[in-house]
């Protein structure tokens, strides 16, 4: 554990050194250094208007994550338990997964308008498919004896899925959530960048034409921190769920 910490600190030091070296090479206008960026980030975090932008993004992400997780789970449970549905739908889902979803954004905007709904929907669109595919794969990989024994214990079809198959596939489901929610965060940001009046994505889009690269980097760092936090939480949950097995 301690060794990992030392290694990570070393890695962070190397990254910072590279950052400074690049700053010196490119000049502070193109790439502001760690010090300037850090000061800008602190300044922004103290600004109530910027805090509102963070809250707006967090709220949108929370809703999008909830949607992606619940719809993904339901879709995945259906795909995992109904073989014919899965043969029919999986090629489409894989295709949709590979599709750059920005191409769908004009349609989403026409449907939902510029605002919370659109960025939530766009974020969720990124996350549903990986959650569904991992859930379906997890359920399909389970030994048939689990469902069989549940039936002899008097569980009906739906109860077998919710009480036995989903808990049994939990490690795979969490792995799907790890990927799905990271993509949901990405989708939420992209949604804000293309059309939104609030949120960190729109802050980014306002900073870019002003060549305010310190702000751009500050937002990037915030996003990185958010993505790492989501990933870390789910990684821990995955490990805890696998602990007893």
């Amino acid at each position, binding site marked *: 554990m301690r060794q990992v910490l030392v290694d990570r600190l070393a890695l962070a030091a190397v990254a910072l050194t590279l950052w400074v070296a690049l700053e010196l090479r490119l000049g502070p206008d193109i790439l502001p250094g760690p010090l300037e960026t850090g000061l800008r980030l602190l300044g922004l975090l103290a600004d109530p208007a910027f805090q509102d932008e963070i809250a707006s993004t967090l709220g949108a992400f929370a809703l999008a994550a909830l949607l992606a997780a619940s719809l993904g789970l339901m879709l995945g449970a259906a795909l995992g338990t109904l073989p014919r549905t899965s043969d029919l739908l999986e090629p489409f889902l894989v295709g949709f997964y590979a599709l750059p979803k920005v191409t769908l954004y004009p349609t989403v905007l026409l449907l939902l308008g510029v605002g919370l709904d659109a960025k939530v929907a766009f974020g969720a669109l990124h996350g549903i498919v990986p959650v569904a595919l991992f859930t379906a794969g997890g359920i399909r990989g389970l030994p048939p004896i689990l469902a069989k*024994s549940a039936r002899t*214990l008097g569980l009906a079809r739906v109860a077998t899925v919710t009480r036995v198959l989903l808990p049994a596939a939990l490690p795979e489901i969490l792995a799907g959530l790890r990927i799905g929610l990271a993509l949901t965060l990405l989708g939420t940001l992209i949604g804000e960048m293309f059309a939104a009046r609030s949120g960190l994505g729109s802050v980014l889009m306002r900073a870019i034409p002003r060549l305010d690269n310190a702000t751009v980097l500050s937002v990037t760092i915030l996003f990185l921190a958010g993505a790492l936090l989501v990933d870390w939480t789910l990684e821990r949950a995955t490990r805890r769920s696998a602990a*007893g097995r």
Partner: protein
Amino acid sequence: MEAHLRLEGVAKVFAASGRSAPVPALGPLDLEVRRGEFLSIVGPSGCGKSTLLDIAAGLLAPSAGRVSFEGREVRGATPPGLGVVFQQDASYPWLTVSENIGFGLRRRGLPAQAVADRVEEAIRLMGLSAFARAYPAQLSGGMRQRVCIARTLVTEPRLVLLDEPFAALDAQTRLLMGDELLKLWRRAGATIVLITHSLEEAALLSDRVLLMSARPGRIIETLATGWPSERSSDLLTDPRFAALTQRLWTALAPEARRALGLGSEAA
């Protein structure tokens, strides 16, 4: 007397898939289990024993024939009062031993305290007291199978179907588990149907032994053991046990050869 479990003309043919022809797996066979008896079904490997159990438990629809439990037809679901123990490890890895054992009970709407009491008693009976809070991954194969047996017995089934429940256990543990099963049977007064490939197990534990033919399995012989209900693995040294096992093997050997694809004159 009314049969506790009855199979009439039951057969199973697995449908053709791709280029392979339909596979007759079982029967047609008739079978009658008497209330309160300990019945074993022995047959060569691949004779359809497990298919028979799936059909009897309502997990698999027969291609022909009819199954009835306590006079009512079994169809599409395991009827209440019928418990099943499988050959494979069916313990739920995300639940502790006591949660596993209480799983079926909790679904029945019993008060929490009643569930806890019955689970605790079952844990004690199965010798799992030290592991009540352990997860299945921390247990040996034999202990996990005891968890599964307890999970079924704790619901107090009137008839228990066991499909090779001791197959994964070593010979000594098998004998001890057999004794435990006999004790539980005497105490609970339930009907027991044990599916096994072990002649010794069948000869030792049962009131009656049914012998099955090679695939597609049919009942070829029924033997009454004549043991008193107070019996145990002490019978291993009884000359009658050796004679009984010998009779079973004489009847079964040709079928076992056929199942392996050996000629009847091979030996």
